[in-house]
């Protein structure tokens, strides 16, 4: 089965949608995100593109609770996320990676990936469960980590210290950590930035594999158009904090307004 057919006819899954509605984020006088609404469906990969400073990461941070929106709501499935802590949102099933790669640099690859599951388990348990794991939980963490590392092709690196790895390997460790968690929706922030062409292709294959296997939704912020075209079924375009276009990959990549936003032309009025 080709990847293309798969993404145009997504399986009916019970994976929830991520819905952003009328999101506005102001930092003092600066409007970083201005009345943005988007819906990333479960079971497919949705793209969020735009030039630097367009408000993509700010939108992500609003989804995961790292900033407080001035207006608007964020919902995963039928649950509104506004006002909840980042940890609560993660426990509800919203996972993410970071553009600046938030890794546990002094720990090994295996430990990093295991914590993807362990932190989630610890957050869900009460009292001593927060502090100590049971043998069966340790088994789950180990198994999930092994599987996630395997899918991302980093099993051979398991005992390496993460701080010593190359950027490409680190990106994969962060993805594996998110996969080891029991997430129903993933936000990936520029996962291919700093990767070479070969690594990016490998990354696209891994992403498609993830979506097929897990059937979860992914919202992808990305600059690499080849990657976006290869994996995204629907794309939203941001510029200066506003949504300027949305459509399928083919539509978006040929739209004048999108080209203008990226090339900085002033010929097109918004």
């Amino acid at each position: 089965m080709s990847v293309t057919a798969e993404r145009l006819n997504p399986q009916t899954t019970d994976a929830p949608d991520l819905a952003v509605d009328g999101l506005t984020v102001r930092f003092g006088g600066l409007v970083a995100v201005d009345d943005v609404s988007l819906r990333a469906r479960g079971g497919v990969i949705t793209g969020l593109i735009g030039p630097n400073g367009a408000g993509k990461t700010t939108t992500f941070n609003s989804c995961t609770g790292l900033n407080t929106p001035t207006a608007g709501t964020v919902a995963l499935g039928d649950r509104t996320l506004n006002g909840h802590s980042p940890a609560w949102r993660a426990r509800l099933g919203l996972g993410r990676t970071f553009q600046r790669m938030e890794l546990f640099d002094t720990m090994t690859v295996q430990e990093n990936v295991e914590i993807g599951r362990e932190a989630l388990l610890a957050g869900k348990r009460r009292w001593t469960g927060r502090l100590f794991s049971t043998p069966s939980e340790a088994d789950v963490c180990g198994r999930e980590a092994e599987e996630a590392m395997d899918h991302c092709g980093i099993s051979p690196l398991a005992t390496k210290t993460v701080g010593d790895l190359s950027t490409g390997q680190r990106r994969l460790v962060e993805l594996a950590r998110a996969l080891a968690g029991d997430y129903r929706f993933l936000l990936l922030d520029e996962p291919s930035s700093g990767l070479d062409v070969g690594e990016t292709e490998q990354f696209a294959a891994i992403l498609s594999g993830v979506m097929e296997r897990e059937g979860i939704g992914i919202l992808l912020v990305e600059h690499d158009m080849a990657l976006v075209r290869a994996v995204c079924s629907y794309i939203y375009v941001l510029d200066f904090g506003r949504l300027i276009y949305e459509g399928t990959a083919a539509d978006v990549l040929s739209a004048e307004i999108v080209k203008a936003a990226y090339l900085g032309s002033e010929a097109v009025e918004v």
Partner: protein
Amino acid sequence: MKEWLPFIVAGITNGSIYGLAAVGLVLTYKTSGIFNFAHGAQAALGAYLMFEFRERMGMSWPLAGFLSLLLAGVVAGLVLERAANVLATCSLAARVTATVGLLVFIQGSLIAIYGAASVPVRPFLPQKVFRFGGVNVRGEQIIVVALVLVAVVGLYLFFTKAKLGLAVQAVVDDPALLGLAGTSPVAVRRFAWLVGSCFAALSGMLLAPTLALDARLLTLLVFFAFGAAAVGAFSSLPLTYVGGIGLGLGASLATKIIGGMKITGPIQGLPANLPFIVLFIALLVTPTRKLVERGSQVVRRPLPPVTFGRRTTAVAAAGGLVIALIVPHVVNARLPIYITGLAYVILFASLGLLVRTSGQASLCHIAFAAVGASTAARAVGAGFPWPLAVLIGGLVAIPIGALLAIPAIRLSGIYLAIATFGFGLVIQRLFYSSMFMFGGTFAIRSPRPHLGGLHTDTDVGYYHVVLAVTVACLAVMVLIRRSRMGRLLRAFADSPTAVDANGTNTNELKVLVFSIAAFFSGIAGGLLGPITGQAAAASGIDVGGFDFSVSLLLLTVLFVAGRQPVFSAVVGSVLLVIIPSYATGETAVKWNPIVFGSLAIVAALFGGRSLIEWLASSRRLRERSATTSPQAERTARPDLVLEAAR
């Protein structure tokens, strides 16, 4: 009204000096991202140098003042600028430890040379009295207020008008960009450190005639600057100056009010401690977004601590235990020192859990031990059995630790370090003398245990009791470190954001780790008292006492001792307690701060790693570069080259 005027005049004068020191502190912090804990020590240095030149060498005061300013201000400023440059890419712990080490070093050196007793200083500015509307004002006071006002206004104008001034604002935010724009960030930083250091030295010289020369007091009084800096959110120079005046006035008026009320208890200490209270409260209420942490974006990736193999660990543990069991039979009269050493192993291990494992900063660790020591002593006095009393001491320290987690939840990095520093001072200066703690004499009876028919009240017997408790505490801490919580804490130290994003609330982790560290520190405190038979809040850097400066010493020594949970604790205790005891008593007390202060500075400057780790890792680095050379790969990335250039 009339009786208030002298207090107002004195308050404004002192406040001006605090403002001057605070403005210098904020200036250096803003431009380099290094918060100089040694700022007050630098002020003391200025005052002592002037004393040396004027009184001992017989120079006239203008010449003596000029030379002191040159040395403690200009020369020290240039040296500090170089050091700050190296520290800019070091971890937070290294940045804090380096300047704390400098504080300990300068203060220790001054006490070693000039003695701990305070020396009166002849005033040098005119003492002629003028009368303004019913209040006497000395010429000295007018000059001080005017001088500071001119200095601060001049600096402010310079910032808002001059090109270099504007550049200062840009230098921390993006030094590389500033460099590209044609202004050398080095010149800007050098200027800032020069002015900042001169302000510090000048404030010390101006304070000395009213206060007398006292290295501890001078260092502490310029900590008033911390409170003023907090009023300006560690950023605004005018607000910082106003904060300084406000604190001087507030302290002066509070003295008058409370002096007139004839009450006793902690409130008596309020005026003198107003700045620390203001500091602590300001850090609690200032909106987090205003407390921008400077220069925290350019930190190098940390290397993991060196780990030892399972067999090495087992052999070392067994060997250590055997040595610990032999000790009582060979050291004779020195045994009490070894008991202190054991309690310090617990102190170091619990501080390590907080600072090394979870990456939090804490400059008040000895305050927890003080709570434990006094509580345990009072519990024994109230008739509780000895083991239970020590346990209660630890338990009572827990809420104090949890209280400290409140600023820890709001603040991170350097601001947390400053808050813990203020917290430790507030506890010591307001509560040590209270009836809950050591009482007015700063000492309470703390007997040794009588456990059944065992002779646990002899030196040898008590040694074995403490050894058992120490081993038990270490075992629990090792278990914690290996548990789920330990893994989450290590992860937290590397990236709090990622821990939160993966489902564990980091606020809970902070409360937990502060509580646990406080508990074990409290236990250690409970063990310390019975060594001499009384728990005493001795002032000064005395091992076994509970002065806040011991907290600073603990941190610096831990930094030198490394990052292993147990091994470093033992090394730290041997370095701080055991080895110095073999020097004759007086010398050890003198040299401890000097040696450890300078060692901590060296350790922080050379990569922020302990000397022991340095030896162990140089071999590992060679192996690493021989195989994959990730270091080379990293520097090949343009954005990291830019980072490195900062």
